[in-house]
């Protein structure tokens, strides 16, 4: 179903001369995001005369929630991968791929393995027999030690 633009828009466009933005300097959101604790970010907003100025924002709830949704999805995938590894349905490689947000394509680029090799290494039986050299390549890509890699240990919060 194709909808035509609402009447409101058309009227607003015609009245553009008298238009006042929602994004005035004083309206720039100041909700505290994870980034906001480290740095504020620049937004463009209008001052009382309608002129654009740079204004710092510490974050906006709408996008903080969007980021939360993204991480919740990631956490779910990590938890699922962890359960699969503990059930011996997959090797720790699967856990770290999810933990580092990687797919076989990115991991292949980081390690130099082929994608089909990586998929093979996801099997616990194959993983068990991997050489130290290969394990080292993975550990480097994931920024962990080989020992932590094999035991599915992470130290970062």
């Amino acid at each position: 179903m194709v909808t035509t633009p609402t009447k409101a828009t058309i009227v607003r466009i015609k009245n553009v001369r008298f238009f006042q933005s929602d994004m005035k300097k004083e309206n720039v959101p100041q909700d505290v995001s994870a980034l906001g604790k480290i740095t504020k970010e620049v937004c463009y907003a209008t001052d009382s005369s309608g002129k654009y100025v740079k204004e710092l924002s510490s974050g906006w709830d709408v996008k903080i929630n969007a980021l939360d949704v993204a991480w919740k999805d990631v956490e779910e995938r990590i938890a699922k991968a962890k359960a699969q590894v503990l059930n011996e349905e997959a090797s720790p490689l699967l856990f770290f791929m999810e933990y580092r947000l990687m797919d076989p394509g990115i991991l292949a680029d980081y390690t130099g393995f082929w994608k089909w090799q990586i998929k093979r290494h996801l099997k616990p039986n194959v993983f068990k027999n991997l050489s130290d050299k290969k394990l080292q390549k993975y550990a480097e890509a994931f920024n962990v030690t080989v020992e932590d890699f094999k035991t599915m240990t992470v130290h970062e919060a």
Partner: protein
Amino acid sequence: MKLDFEHLQSAHCESGVTSSLLRKNSGGKITEPLAFGIGAGLFFCYIPLIKINNGPAIAFRTFPGLIFKRTCNALGIPVIRKKFRSKDQAEDYLKQRLDEGHPVGCQVGVYYLSYFPREYRFHFNAHNLIVFGKEDDNYLISDPVMETTTTLTSYELERVRFAKGALAPRGQLYYPKEDVEITDERIRKAIISGIKNNVNQMLRIPGSFAGIRGIKYTGEKIKRWRDKLGLQKAGSYLAQLVRMQEEIGTGGGGFRYIYAAFLQEAYAYVQKDELLEISKMFTQAGDLWRTAAVQAAGIYKGRIGSQKDFDVMGDYLIEISVLEKEAFTALKNIKWN
């Protein structure tokens, strides 16, 4: 060694880096909005079939690297851009450039970028920063989205310069080749060509996924997400749309406010009253994008979620496409002489 360099915080990394690197040439005249507009930065694209972080691939800006390239081209400044196979060569070249006394722009991946909070680290490889010195093993970094300068060890810098995956930077660095003075007349011409470029990019690009038609296409798609993906996944998709639109680097409203600021600044060089009027239309577009984001947030927070709510969401985008079409058509119709 530390170069004489003034950190400049900006909304968007690439236009910020462009503005900073051109500061010497332009005497500070090329602000971030001017760099963004001259580089024809405003865009919209929905790439079907491709997934980024298990969500839709949506961009509100033009392809990485183009803003710097177009802006320098339009201003008549020769550009050097280099990619490297070898990590050692990449570092040697950077050091040599710093020794000669020039700051350097680098494309990097953010996943292993140590000074970013973990929540913001995804495998996104088109971030830009400036290296302006080295003290012991630490490179001095001016990252335009940060309030202050920061540092990376040589290993950390190498790691992000050689991040892997889509748009892998491969050690890429770039800088204006020489100091060429930029006259106001040159800026005037660059502004006009930047606007024309952006008009083409939004109105004339073929296919239904990009430009104005892409916004409408995405609006139509969103209405079907609930049935096709289920409520939860559709919510995640909308969250991804909002992140691309509002997350660090857009200046708010999917770059629409920066563009509105550009048109205001352009007026100082090209006295066409239309520019100020059209600037307001882009402000409106930015507002409408943000209204849409609030609607999307209602859905991904689970406050609302009926088919009607998705229809409203899709209609916002369709409304935006109408509004932006009007704005770009008005830009197209300006008589420049």
